[in-house]
């Protein structure tokens, strides 16, 4: 009997909902303290990464009759961050569980819909997880058991393990990828690059930023969440796999008013060619006065979606009842809903987190702030090398 196949469609819809902002975040940022039976790892299991470096290693995922594959790895003392991706071609995958002795980080059996903080993990195409996502989710030295599941699971998949065994830092590499005949009304690509670079600079990240430009052939009017969108995100495979693509399309065929969305929270960064690799941003949804692209708004969309792709959630969700799992991000509570319309605008939360680039709604002012731990999540990303 296969694992949770009946739930896959629901779960994938929930995953999409999360990407589009439906599923928010709760108040309990810690992993489960009740991990179940003692974890026994065999001697001689591989140690993650290389001392002093950030690297990506791969391990085969050999699925059992339930479609589950297990990989045991040893976490070294100096591991500062880890990102894992379960890749089974174009199939939905998920992490059934990630455990260490005394800690259960993810449990798909008890939380198939991915509603539990702090990971909110569920099925996705090339499902990904990153550690840490907040102050309390760094992996401890010792054995870690990673159990992945695939919708199909008939041929071996691949577990991509990107690790950082250095201090936070390096260079975050992003490519703005112009799709097909997409145009940028009233502005140049150079202006967009400059604004995205400036915004990332204003966030105070302790990483350098390299924003490049590329083009791909393809449909500049894909539909949201269809095969074309997945094919698009798999279409750009840079020589340097750590570059995160931001696909600029003219607009979505079916959803006219989508600004953009990420491939996952987090996405499979460092694994180009997968259906959720990278962010998609719709140019025409950013047209301002004189029907020209508002470079400021577009840069904020690019960075907001990159934040999701790197593992950040909205700081505050629309009704002020749900927040990201990071303790040091300010939370705008319903008491700030001055007009009592049930939703917290950026203006109402201006003195709290309304200026945070991960706030749920754009504002009439710049949103160019991150909390210290939001920055830390980005700075620790193993793709920043």
């Amino acid at each position, binding site marked *: 009997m296969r694992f949770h196949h009946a739930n896959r469609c629901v779960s994938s819809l929930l995953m999409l909902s999360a990407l*589009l*902002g439906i599923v928010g975040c709760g108040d309990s940022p810690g992993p489960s303290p009740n991990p179940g039976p003692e974890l026994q790892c065999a001697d001689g299991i591989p140690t993650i990464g290389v001392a002093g470096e950030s690297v990506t290693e791969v391990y085969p995922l050999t699925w059992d009759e339930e479609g589950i594959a297990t990989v045991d790895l040893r976490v070294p003392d100096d591991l500062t961050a880890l990102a894992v991706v379960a890749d089974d071609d174009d199939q939905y995958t998920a992490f059934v569980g990630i455990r260490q002795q005394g800690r259960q980080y993810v449990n798909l059996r008890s939380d198939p819909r991915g509603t539990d903080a702090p990971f909110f993990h569920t099925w996705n195409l090339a499902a990904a997880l990153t550690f840490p996502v907040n102050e309390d989710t760094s992996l401890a030295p010792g054995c870690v058991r990673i159990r992945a599941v695939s919708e199909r699971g008939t041929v071996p998949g691949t577990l991509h393990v990107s690790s950082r065994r250095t201090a936070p830092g390096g260079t975050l590499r992003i490519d703005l990828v112009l799709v097909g005949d997409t145009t940028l009304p009233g502005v140049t690509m150079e202006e967009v690059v400059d604004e995205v670079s400036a915004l990332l600079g204003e966030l105070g990240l302790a990483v350098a930023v390299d924003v490049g430009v590329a083009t791909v052939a393809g449909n500049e009017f894909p539909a949201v969440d269809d095969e074309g969108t997945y094919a698009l995100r798999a279409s750009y495979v840079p020589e340097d796999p750590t570059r995160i693509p931001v696909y600029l399309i003219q607009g979505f065929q079916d959803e006219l008013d989508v*600004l953009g969305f990420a491939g996952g929270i987090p996405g499979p960064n460092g694994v180009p060619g997968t259906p959720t690799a990278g962010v998609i941003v719709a140019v025409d949804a950013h047209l301002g006065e004189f*029907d020209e692209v*508002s470079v400021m708004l577009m840069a904020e969309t690019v960075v907001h979606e990159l934040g999701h792709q790197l593992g950040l959630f909205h700081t505050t969700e629309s009704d002020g009842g749900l927040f990201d799992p990071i303790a040091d991000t300010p939370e705008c509570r319903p008491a700030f809903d001055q007009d009592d*319309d049930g939703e917290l605008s950026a203006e109402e939360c201006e003195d709290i987190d309304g200026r945070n680039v991960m706030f*749920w*709604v754009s504002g009439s*002012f710049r949103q160019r702030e991150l909390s210290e731990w939001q920055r830390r999540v980005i700075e620790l990303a193993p793709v920043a090398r």
Partner: protein
Amino acid sequence: MMRSSTLSIARLALLAGALLTMTDTALGVSVRLCASVAHAQFDAFADAPAGTEALAARLRARHRSDLPTAEQLADATHGARLRWLAEHHPLALVRARALLLLAAHRDARTRALVLRVLDSTEPVIVRAAALRATDGWRMDAGLARRVRRLADERDPRLAEPARKRLGRR
């Protein structure tokens, strides 16, 4: 032509407020102060129905799932706010979202506005939103003429729904 001088002034006022905020921020002036200054000098919502500014804020949601539904905004008060935003807001995104949400409104003023947008040179996402706002309308001669014209557009966001509406492949 969609844009009267009045519409442009309203949009320009909103834009000018934003630009002032940006400029003063760059100069190191308190963003809180400059937002107040911008608001005082460029009260672009001055001629809008009460509550329009708050609705505009909601329509700037980064993700569609956070938008109000057409059913939630089906009353006449919201209809007036949405019509104002569909004409005056400087962001095409907000104009388009306002038009999509006007699908629940069938009054004469909404109908006249939607037809004006269809005849305008508004960006594709705004005209395509207006076309969707007509989904529940009876296809009279005036609407049919407009839909036939849109069916010949090169942009698939206009052409495909228009052709579908006409029963064409």
